[in-house]
């Protein structure tokens, strides 16, 4: 289950953000709810089927420019893998 940096993650069917705008926001999914704030929210907000995994990483590396870029990348991939295991994400294949 390694994540393709060129794929575009989006929320799987039945997974959606709770309809309110103040933090912590909640990702609702079958039989579960995840509270999101800070970086976890910034990752999930970009899982829109438009951003590639690489783009998410680059954007957040810029946003967290004080942090070690390799560490930011590692955290993002770890979080995406967790969401994938929860079946909260579908990955649109890279454009060929």
């Amino acid at each position, binding site marked *: *289950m390694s994540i393709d940096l060129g794929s575009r993650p989006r929320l799987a069917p*039945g997974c959606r953000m709770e309809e309110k705008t103040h933090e912590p926001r909640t990702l*609702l999914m079958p039989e579960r709810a995840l509270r999101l704030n800070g970086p976890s929210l910034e990752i999930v907000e970009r899982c829109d089927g438009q951003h590639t995994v690489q783009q998410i990483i680059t954007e957040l590396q810029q946003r967290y420019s004080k942090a070690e870029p390799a560490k930011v990348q590692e955290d993002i991939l770890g979080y995406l893998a967790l969401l994938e295991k929860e*079946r909260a994400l579908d990955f649109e294949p890279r454009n060929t």
Partner: protein
Amino acid sequence: MNEPRSNPLALIAELTHRCPLHCVYCSNPLELEARTTELSTEEWSRVFQEAAALGVLQADFTGGEPLTRPDILDLIRAARAARLYVNLITSGLPLDESRLEALVQAGLDHFQLSFQGAREEVANEISGTRAHAQKLRVLEWLKRHRIAVTLNFVMHRRNIEQLPEMLSLAESSSASRVEFANVQYYGWAFANRDALLPTREQLTHSIDFLKKAQERLAGKIKVEYIVPDYYARFPKPCMGGWARKLMLITPSGEALPCHAAKVIPGLAFENVKNRHLSEIWEVSDAFERFRGESWMQEPCKTCDRRALDFGGCRCQAFLLAADATATDPVCSLAPQRPKVDAILLTINSRVAQASASALTTTISGDATEPRRTDSSAGASVAAPTESKPAWRYRPNPS
């Protein structure tokens, strides 16, 4: 009670006790509520608003069969308008393709289709209805919609050996989750328990099989498994702890801390017709009685695990030990555990005897059904060859 009171996260809405099926393990109470006592669309809508205000995130529409409510679409819209996530737990029976489309349009988030097995004959025996073929049709329709799908297989001694077939069914569907939930022994399942409890051997095989399935399907299908707690060393944290996370509303509006709470004598229940949900959550006798730890006896009272499992299930304590404040008798530390061991011993030896005598008839040659052998995961479990039990079927309320 030293911890601050939490708010409920899920509302289990038993919309009706009516159901076209008659499952021998139905979790509904033996006393079913009549149609005439059911809450109206408006009353449910108010309950959803109150629940959301109390912090509830999800509504589980269940029953009975929730699709027997003619106002099901309005109820889904009302729950969505209250900003709840809507799960539907259904047999798939009163459904055709256009009604499914309408459910999705109304905002249903998650469709849970319950199965009585993977083989038509046993599945229909268990539900007392010819329901299986319709479920397979529903699975096909679901493929055309963007909606979360879970298949719920209810497991017991008569179908546990069909596990590989059940898993294949899930893999060929659009489900992102599959739940293999062993029957829990309350309600009708308690009445039929001795014919439903799997053997220890069946259980061990099934756990091995499912562990492998979980690994293989990671990222594709989330495989969940619930073992029968009679075989466990420690009880489950039933409902996430009494009155900590969940609230159940019966068809007539009674607020319960769990499905089976009404078996416990002397608990007073409040009705949503008379009181605001938040008040019920906070002060209702039924919710307060076993909240926190002050009601506990030894060994729970001083046990390290009490914050993990909350002493197990109160209803099971009552059903098996005749004392709702006792340690759940399935716990290996419980003074009443020998009762559970005795039940398991009886069943395991009875099934062993039945298979031994069945072997002699098979040799004499009247095996009509080809015996399935599974080469893949070593998970094939010889079905204990018993004759059809004298089931107590769940009837329909008036």
